[in-house]
């Protein structure tokens, strides 16, 4: 099986330098594009490939790009932003790519910038990813020396500056418009859409924001064609996917597998549950996806597959709920995260999430009261999409919705028994 994302990755060896990367076929896609493809051709190939954004929402990448004004009349500069803020609890896939194959990301960035005729790209990296920063800087230095970034790239007349921007914390920076405000040196409150960033983004200019993994898919698509990319997948969504598992499994980790692998297959890859632990459930793709249970191991992990169970693939990195872990405690932990990371802009999120957190803590500590589950339900309904300003709070509610659906009994027991059965 082709593994376009991880073929160069060898954790023991570390990342390839520029020469190694080129020897492994790197920057061929870029040479091809600059040599023989127009920006529209690159966009077309990406559209045809059915690449969907790997940042969590799964928006078709080619379609996203198609809204960027093109040609000499378009406002300048245009920007490409790489969303490397990976902070979704349970997600650890972008780090793998950046630490171990930085040139792949750079090639993806240059190609994508070319496709939308962007003059400047910013890689928005979370501060804690120190090693990623070091390796990206290194790769950027090499690429600059080799004429792969900067003026007149590879003599093809295309100019691109790439800057690595490291952040200063806050999950909301990963929300694409919050990211823009943060890059502008402001508080990372999200922005209202429309206008979409393609029309008015960074400093009011046309801007595309893509996830690291998304951009890492682009060189393969250009090198091998859309059809090839489509065939990597088992489903309609093109390509391979980085899937991950954490929790009480034998071999937690992150692997490249065909898009559309099942939960069971991914769990197998993780070596199954640790001895003494039983699978009760999981959140399939990072903290803002709905809980599934051990009944859902056949579910297909792609952008549509989990919909029929009321969940989402999200980042594709799952967190396992085992039988020795309290689901209420887990929810409380998630809500503590989301309440703390709320940007403070809109009321439901700013003031609703702390309430949910406090209610769950009350359950955990034996202070739960009769109406508390209704209050939790109320929040799951009233913090939904469209009701809050951005997707943070609706995302926060997803695991709670799933937990209340599948494990309501556990919640009730906390009230009836005045405390957490797992904590005593």
């Amino acid at each position, binding site marked *: 099986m082709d593994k376009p994302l991880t073929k160069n990755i060898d954790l023991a060896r570390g990342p390839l330098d520029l020469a190694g990367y080129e020897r492994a076929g790197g920057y061929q896609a870029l040479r091809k594009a600059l040599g023989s493809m127009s920006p529209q051709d690159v966009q077309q190939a990406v559209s045809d490939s059915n690449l969907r954004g790997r940042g969590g929402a799964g928006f078709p990448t080619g379609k996203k790009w198609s809204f960027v004004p093109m040609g000499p009349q378009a406002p300048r500069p245009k920007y490409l932003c790489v969303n490397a803020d990976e902070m979704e609890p349970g*997600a*650890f896939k972008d780090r793998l790519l950046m630490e171990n194959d930085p040139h792949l990301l750079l090639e993806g960035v240059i190609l994508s910038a070319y496709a939308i005729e962007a003059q400047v790209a910013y890689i928005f990296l979370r501060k*804690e990813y120190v090693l990623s920063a070091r390796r990206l800087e290194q790769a950027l230095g090499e690429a600059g020396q080799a004429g792969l970034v900067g003026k007149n790239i590879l003599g093809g007349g295309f100019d691109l500056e790439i*800057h690595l*921007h490291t952040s200063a*914390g806050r999950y909301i920076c990963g929300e694409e418009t919050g990211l823009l405000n943060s*890059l502008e040196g402001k508080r*990372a409150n999200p922005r209202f859409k429309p206008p979409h960033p393609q029309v008015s983004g960074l400093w009011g200019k046309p801007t595309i924001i893509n996830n690291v993994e998304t951009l890492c898919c682009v060189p393969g698509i250009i090198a091998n064609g859309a059809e090839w990319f489509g065939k990597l997948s088992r489903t309609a969504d093109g390509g391979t996917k980085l899937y991950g598992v954490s929790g009480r499994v034998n071999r937690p980790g992150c692997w490249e597998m065909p898009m559309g692998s099942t939960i069971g297959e991914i769990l197998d890859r993780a070596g199954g549950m640790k001895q003494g632990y039983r699978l009760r459930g999981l959140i399939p793709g990072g903290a803002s996806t709905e809980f599934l249970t051990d009944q859902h191991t056949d579910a297909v992990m792609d952008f549509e597959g989990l919909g029929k169970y009321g969940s989402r693939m999200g980042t594709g990195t799952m967190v396992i709920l085992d039988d020795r872990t309290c689901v209420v*405690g887990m929810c409380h932990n998630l809500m*503590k995260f989301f309440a703390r990371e709320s940007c403070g802009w809109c009321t439901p999120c700013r003031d609703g999430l702390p309430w949910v957190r406090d209610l769950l803590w009350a359950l955990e500590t034996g202070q739960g009261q009769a109406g508390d589950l209704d209050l939790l339900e109320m929040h799951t309904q009233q913090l939904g999409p469209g009701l809050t300003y951005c997707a943070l709070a609706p995302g926060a509610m997803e695991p709670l919705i799933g937990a209340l659906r599948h494990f309501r009994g556990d919640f009730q027991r906390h009230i009836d028994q005045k405390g957490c059965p797992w904590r005593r």
Partner: protein
Amino acid sequence: MLNETEKEEVARELERYPTRQAACIEALKIVQKRHGYVSDEHLAELAGLLGMTEDELDGVATFYSLIFRRPVGRHVILLCDSVSCYVMGYEDIYRHLRGGLGIEFGQTTADGRFTLLPAPCLGCCDRAPAMMIDDDLQLDLTGPKVDQILAQYQ
């Protein structure tokens, strides 16, 4: 006062963005690298360099969790308290740290050696529980391992 190196670093950052304000987060981190935190004096000086007011810059500085506006210890421990680490028992590690250092989240040891802070998911969920001390990731934590690690930071 910023020293020459810091001023140069800030100047370099300024070149990477079309507005001065855009460099402010990097600039705050440059100050923090040397001093551990951003004092009122540094805030004022940076604001001047960046064409911002202190109030504007402080509005940004206090938004971000990794800009410290109060003094911290010589080493900052960021203990991941997110969901995978929760499942894998970060609370035990926290208890251990609390016992060993005598501080809670948000506090600094009396000798000024450590500040302990909760951190959102560090992206090491497969190696949970995890923490970061200064720039170093520490993975697969256990109580005894934590003691060994702490000993390396004086």
